[in-house]
């Protein structure tokens, strides 16, 4: 679970982190040595449905 909740860039509601995914070939992103790619958090807004991601800490 994310250390700090993500705010929806569309409506400002607190988003829910529902997944993590390894992204390969990310441009300029830090490669996680355990996974060989960038670990991304996936978030969804329960108010408006908007989805967003950010690199995991």
């Amino acid at each position: 679970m994310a250390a700090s909740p993500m705010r929806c860039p569309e409506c400002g509601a607190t988003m829910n982190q529902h997944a993590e995914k390894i992204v390969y070939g990310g441009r300029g992103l830090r490669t996680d040595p355990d996974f060989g790619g960038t670990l991304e958090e996936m978030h969804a807004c329960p108010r408006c449905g908007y989805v967003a991601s950010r690199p995991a800490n």
Partner: protein
Amino acid sequence: MAEARPLSIPVVLGTARKGRMSAHAARLVHEELQKRDGVITELIDVGSLTVMLDDNGQGTGDPAFAASMNRADAIILVAPEYNHAMPGLLKHVLDSCLQEYIHKAAGIVAVSAGPFGGTRVIETTLPVLRELGLATIFWDVNFGSVGKVFDDKGALLDASFIRRTDKFLSELLWMAKTLRYGREHITV
């Protein structure tokens, strides 16, 4: 049961080929989807999207397509079978997004001029959708020998496809509702 916020389910017509019969299948599925309560839909033609041919991958696609995928609770791919796989243009377009797809439902409508109903494009598309983070359903619609299913103007000649599409949509909507709840309320 209608959702408070309508489900968004775009239909993606996956070929730009001249004379494409897949357009008739996409229109039929889109029309049947429009009859469902609590659903908003749009028909996206990959041939009308802005496509970068000198780049590829996440964030390189048409912003309008990315916005549609962000809003979507499920997507329907109408994919003809070209040499056992989806058209290269459809793969290129799908690869332009990633975060927009995660934990969303996907259904495949396969179209083929031959008798096998596009089963091979379905089989080769499933691992792609999985890697994109989409959750595939177990119903498909197979428009095999599509030249006998629609006439030249797109009129449906085989009414069984209405019922087949109805079952496919029912399963897709169930998955879309379930995954929306999961995305928005269940934390990983």
